[in-house]
């Protein structure tokens, strides 16, 4: 600072201060890069482990046959669990999607800041509720005194999905420019028609992505299944209101608890099916979003 700067000096790091700053800079950059790589590595390791352990199980019959029902016997598939999981998640989505989107519409289009803030907070708190707590609540509401049903599990998953869908949808609706709403209003179009005709279509890709992410999250939830849909027979059924439905998370849980190697293998196989379903869903959602964005942007 006291030494006057000589502008003609070579532009290389000569002073100790500058060299030290460069070292710190490189170190921090290295650590941050490493952290980013760790995130990728964890995902890769999990997928590779599940895939290498589960791949040997994968076969047409694994996906299309019901379990044998014989203790410790090899063979049999997880068809009933795939169907059951699909049913439970589909019914949960059918309940959570309209509710979540309507909440988001209320928050972005109708509410005043004073009412929106507590509702957003409530959604965030709901989102943070442990799934076992939600499961116990639904158990007391629908199962106790009656029996386990697939619907009870759907109900619990819907509670888990609503805040996810509402929050992502709300973020997407907020991205829709106010000018588009103004343009529609200036044409003498009512608020509701504006929302249905302009706001929601503009945000559709984002809403679908939010839905798929919520589905992916719900499909793997295990705690609600343990309490609400874990006592089931071996056969495939879609009687979601009458009985508990077999489902993938519970199969993974119970088979990995078992003492038989054939059950362990089946657990890995089921885990691979679940993870593949979630990954494919995620990537499809993103691709859909990108395609829609391109279509809107392109001429």
């Amino acid at each position, binding site marked *: 600072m006291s030494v006057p700067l000589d502008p003609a000096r070579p532009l290389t790091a000569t002073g100790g201060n500058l060299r030290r700053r460069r070292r710190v800079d490189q170190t921090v950059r290295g650590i941050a890069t490493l952290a980013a790589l760790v995130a990728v590595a964890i995902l890769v390791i999990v997928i590779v482990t599940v895939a290498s352990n589960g791949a040997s199980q994968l076969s047409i019959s694994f996906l299309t046959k019901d379990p044998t029902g014989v203790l410790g016997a090899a063979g049999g598939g997880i068809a009933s669990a795939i169907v059951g999981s699909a049913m439970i998640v589909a019914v949960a989505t059918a309940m959570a999607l309209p509710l979540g989107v309507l909440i988001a519409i209320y928050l972005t289009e109708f509410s*005043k800041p004073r009412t929106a803030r507590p509702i957003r907070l409530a959604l965030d708190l709901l989102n943070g509720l442990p799934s076992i707590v939600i499961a116990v609540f639904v158990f007391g509401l629908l199962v106790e005194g009656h029996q386990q049903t697939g619907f009870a599990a759907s109900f619990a998953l819907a509670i888990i999905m609503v805040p996810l869908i509402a929050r992502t949808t709300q973020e997407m609706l907020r991205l829709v*420019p106010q*000018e*588009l709403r*103004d*343009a*529609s*209003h*200036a*044409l*003498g*179009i*009512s608020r509701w*028609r504006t929302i249905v*005709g*302009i706001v929601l*279509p*503009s945000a559709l890709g984002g809403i679908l992505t939010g839905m798929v992410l919520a589905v992916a999250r719900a499909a793997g939830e295990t705690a609600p299944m343990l309490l609400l849909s874990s006592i089931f027979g071996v056969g495939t059924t879609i009687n979601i209101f009458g009985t508990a439905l077999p489902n993938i998370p519970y199969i993974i849980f119970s088979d990995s608890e078992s003492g038989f190697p054939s059950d362990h293998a089946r657990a890995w196989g089921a885990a691979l099916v679940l993870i593949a379903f979630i990954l494919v869903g995620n990537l499809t959602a993103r691709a859909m979003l990108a395609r829609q964005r391109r*279509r*809107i*942007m*392109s*001429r």
Partner: protein
Amino acid sequence: MDTSQPEADASGAPPLAPLAITTREGPPTTATEVVFELRDLGVYYGRTLAVDGVSMKVYKNVITAMIGPSGCGKSTVVRTLNRMNDSVPGFRVTGEALYHDNDIYGPGVDPVEVRRRIGMVFQRPNPFPKSIYDNVAWAPRILGMKSGLDERVEKALRGAALWDEVKDRLKGSALGLSGGQQQRLCIARSIAIEPDVLLLDEPCSALDPIATASVEELMQDLKRTYTLVIVTHNMQQAARVAERTAFFSLDVSNGRRAGVLIEYDDTEKLFTRPNDKRTEDYVTGRFG
């Protein structure tokens, strides 16, 4: 389709009204029907008085310009005319804003119906992320003007002098158009529902000079059918397109900052022989 409206097309159109007849007292003699009458209009945002004491009449089939420095309330006034400010928190009007002798803010008035008759074109082109065709056809479809929709779209696009440029790509996205084309599409979208009035809130401020010229030319066509009110901070534009011009300014006396109407007259008169010193300072470039 309703064909009672005169075509904005060259064929069979009524002859252009002579421009800017400069009678000092009254409106241009070709059109005397009053569309808007503001009586001591004041606009509040919360407790802040944004516009105060505006009284003026807007005449049918005349282009009326509102000019003035930034923050003088000209946009606020024009957005008050079709209740676009309703969504602004704390927005409140005092005085009267009459549209064909009906109070725009009277009890039971539906803002949707107000905007159905009084269309608006905004500062930045804001086409919907839909095809060119759907941009124009969407509102008529919802408002129940379903018969002859193709003809209606064509007529609106022709009316906005855009048809020849887009007729081969009606299914293409509106966002692929240039800025000037997008703005003319927004005008086409507005006139497709056959409003009575078109409000233009600085419609050319985001456009280049060539696109500006095409929109200004278009306005001369449109005024045969519609009543136009244009807000602009470009004085030359007001002088070029408008028969009547209102000059707004910011009144900062008594510790307040409110937009007020200084002078409202025939454009030629306002620009060449203004009554008020503040108008003269502004139009000669000494201020603002």
